[in-house]
């Protein structure tokens, strides 16, 4: 009699068979959205300013980045091109190097994105712009976050 009577004790374990599926789903999401940073920052991570009238940068391969910010323990604004802290005068070589990697007809489309810290002096930015004008790299983009502009000022 008792042979067929099963003992019911405790809750049945929740099946974790679909756990790998869920994890894979997340994994693929992050694999697809992830952007590997091409350069390691030598300067302190710039706190970008906020703006509302933003445009999205379209073709990423056509964008070159100039970082402007501070270095710990040193005064003044520093410019980082690729992996090095550089001088304003190096910008033209940086632009030429960028142009070399693109075909002739893409050169007018090249955009320079300036990722500058909110507390940078405008003078530094002007020097960069002047240098870019000298080599005819005219399309620029001031990299910003989307948000209220008043946040730039309250300090």
């Amino acid at each position, binding site marked *: 009699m008792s042979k067929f009577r099963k003992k019911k004790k405790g809750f049945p374990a929740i099946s*974790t068979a679909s*756990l*790998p599926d869920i*994890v*894979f789903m*997340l*994994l693929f999401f*992050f*694999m697809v*959205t*992830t*952007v*590997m*940073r091409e350069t390691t920052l030598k300067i302190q991570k710039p706190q*970008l*300013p*906020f*703006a*509302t*009238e*933003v*445009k*999205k*940068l379209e073709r*990423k391969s056509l*964008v070159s980045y100039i970082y402007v910010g501070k270095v710990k323990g040193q005064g003044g604004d520093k410019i980082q091109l690729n992996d090095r802290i550089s001088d304003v005068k190096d910008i033209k070589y940086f632009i030429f190097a960028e142009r070399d990697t693109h075909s002739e007809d893409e050169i007018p489309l090249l*955009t320079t*994105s300036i990722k*500058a*810290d*909110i*507390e*940078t*002096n*405008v*003078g530094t*930015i*002007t020097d960069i*712009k002047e240098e*870019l*004008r*000298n080599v*005819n790299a*005219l*399309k*620029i*983009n*001031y*990299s*910003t*976050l*989307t948000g209220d*502009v*008043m946040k*730039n*000022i309250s300090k």
Partner: protein
Amino acid sequence: MARRDLPEINAGSMADIAFLLLIFFLVTTTMDTDKGISRKLPEKQDDIDPPILKEKNVFIVTVNRNNDILVEGDYFMTVDKLREEAIKFIDNGGGFGNPIDGADPAECDWCEGAKDPKSSDHPNKAVISLESDRGTSYGTYIAVQNELVGAYTFLRNRLSEKLYDISYTQMIKDNKNHPSLKLKDQITNIKKKYPQIISEAEPTK
């Protein structure tokens, strides 16, 4: 003959492997912001006399090293008022504009401004001049730029909604997804009616 089943591979550790990868990507991922204010720098020119502009057609915004904003060299202003003031200036339409497509100079019949003869004549004559100091902070500079671009966007949107029942921003978006000649023409038309003329002076030292 005896049936021999292949032993099934244990997939129990699959989740662990996937988790490991997941955590790797979670840590390395940076949701990069690729947005910003796009500007085009003027081309380098040698010895070209700057065109002579009437004073009333120039809206001078000066930002000093203490991040104060001075408008028309006359009164101080906070950033949040700037957009409104710029709109008033651009949209004034107090006189005749530059000829469009070879036609005679005409009044701005799409402007809704005060038509004050002391302010700008026409959107295509109205120049916004931005003067900054080398010591101005970048945040303020971007805020001012943003407000000035915002003023143009507002006017373009308003006109576009009146003419085509669709905002200018939306038109740009649509044109990107489904480019068409009609949209392109409409965009050029709006751009011609409210050309964005922002001039930046060399900063003071």
